[in-house]
């Protein structure tokens, strides 16, 4: 981890508690200029609260947040000048038209009056809003609303861009465009964006912060994340057969990496096997063929990788390290 002095975003032992409920628990990480960091976690993991603390919307119960060298506790207005923030729900004034809305945000961000028109053109082009600049926001589709939210965050080319699920509500083409905007912006700024879409972080991030139940489980590379993903491909089956024989047979199947076999009920020959398999499809068919040649197969199920399983893998890795 880099020094927190040179980082544009630095969290030091940040916690947020509401009464007895801890939403964010002792989280520390940094994001440097030129870095795009994905903030990955299931719903309710603490992503939004962490982003809100970095944006200055809410203060941490303990710990310190610094943005571009400014302490959010004492210099939040100075820090806010360096931040572009898109909350989970795009913060739009429905009665305003897109142009009036963006002009308000530009003025509030203290962009020089003579530079506002050019800046509006830049973000309108980047977010493909040309067709709706005069339309009232309440008339816009969900995709356009999300893009207007992204456009306001980009105004003034802030050093730090915080995006809470920026591609939610966009169609596949718009998702691709939004990713391009984020990627281009990340070249010389610090970008932290939250998501629960695995593909998103592996496609555009240099690092991934993995958060679960308010705790930062790991800062990993997309490669590390993909490795974790591989490890969550599993096939579960129930077979009438001897445990050792079933284990050996399963291990002989191409694509099976590891096998855990246990007897289901005492006195019966029924065993349950949990196989870690390679990501390629077809492994389950090979397993079924191998087993049914010798024994009765009662159940076979391929488990798709889920975020929950990936988090469990990081949790167990952390437990093993401890």
């Amino acid at each position, binding site marked *: 981890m880099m020094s927190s002095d040179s980082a544009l975003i630095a969290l030091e032992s940040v916690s947020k508690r509401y009464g007895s409920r801890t939403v964010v628990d002792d989280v520390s990480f940094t994001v440097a200029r030129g870095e795009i960091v994905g903030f990955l976690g299931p719903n309710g993991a603490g992503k939004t609260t962490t982003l*809100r603390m970095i*944006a*200055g*919307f*809410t*203060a941490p119960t303990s710990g310190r947040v610094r943005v571009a060298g400014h302490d959010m506790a004492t210099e*939040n*207005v*100075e820090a*806010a*000048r360096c*931040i572009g*923030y898109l*909350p989970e*729900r*795009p*913060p*739009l*004034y*429905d*009665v*305003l038209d897109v142009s*009036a809305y963006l002009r*308000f*945000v530009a*003025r*509030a*961000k*203290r962009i020089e009056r003579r530079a506002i028109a050019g800046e509006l053109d830049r973000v309108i082009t980047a977010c493909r809003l040309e067709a709706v600049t005069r339309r*009232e926001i309440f008339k816009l589709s969900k995709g356009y609303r999300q893009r207007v939210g992204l456009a*306001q965050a980009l105004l003034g080319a802030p050093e730090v861009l915080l995006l809470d699920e920026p591609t939610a509500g966009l169609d596949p083409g718009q998702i691709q465009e939004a990713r391009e905007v984020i990627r281009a912006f990340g070249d010389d700024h610090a970008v932290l964006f939250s998501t629960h879409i695995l593909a998103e972080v592996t496609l555009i991030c240099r690092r991934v912060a993995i958060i679960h139940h308010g705790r930062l489980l790991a800062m990993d590379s997309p490669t590390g994340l993909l490795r974790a993903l591989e490890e969550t491909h599993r096939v579960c089956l129930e077979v009438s057969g001897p445990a050792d024989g079933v284990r050996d047979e399963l291990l002989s199947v191409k694509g099976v990496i590891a096998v855990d076999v246990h007897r289901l009920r005492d006195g019966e020959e029924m065993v349950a096997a949990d196989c870690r398999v390679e990501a390629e499809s077809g492994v389950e068919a090979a397993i079924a063929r191998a087993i049914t040649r010798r024994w009765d197969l009662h159940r076979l199920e391929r488990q798709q990788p889920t975020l929950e399983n990936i988090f469990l893998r990081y949790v167990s890795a952390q437990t093993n390290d401890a």
Partner: protein
Amino acid sequence: MSGTLAVYGKELASYFRSAIAYYVVAVFLLGTGYFFLYNVFLTGETTMAGTFQNMGILLTTLVPVISMRLFSVEYSAGTAELLLTLPLQPWEIVAGKYLGAVTILVLMTAATVVDLVPLYLFGTPETTTILAGYIGFVLLGMACLAIGLLFSTLTHNQIVAALITAAVLLGFWFVGHLQTFQQSGTLRELFGYLSFSRHFVDFIQGLVRTEAVAFYLIVAAIALTLSTNYLKWRR
């Protein structure tokens, strides 16, 4: 200051692009028009005194409609997350919103000038008394709006904000009546001092007393300061 102007501009745009400003001004003009006709044509007095008195009570019911949305709607629509994370000091946000609401107040007050046309056509009213009444009305409105803004910062629910504001404003309007039931001279004096209507009566009678001007301004300043501090604290 530029932050205040940005918020002020957004507030005015929001008022005039939605129905709120037109609704409030229309209801206020209908109300004042009725009171004016009643007070002037039925009593035959060419003064605005009775009309101003009624305008004051009407104001306590219309101010909550203007003020309830100031912050409550920002919380419920999620725009507070933008507003409170922009590089704006809390006082700039409060000032911008307050000035926007005061502008609506001034516009609806200015629209009642139409009532003066028949007054001057058919009588000889005292211009200074009328001017004092208008000054008092705007000051009263400024104090009421600041109180409404304070309650709007405290809740996500616009209806709750409006109801509490209306209750508090009516309390301030009628608190003077409690004087009658008090033995203690201090309490009698306090209730009299806190009464919005007692101070307003001075203006209606043509007196612009420093004490009355200061009273409304101090009430507004206290409410705005509390709102600003609440915004700082809620982080």
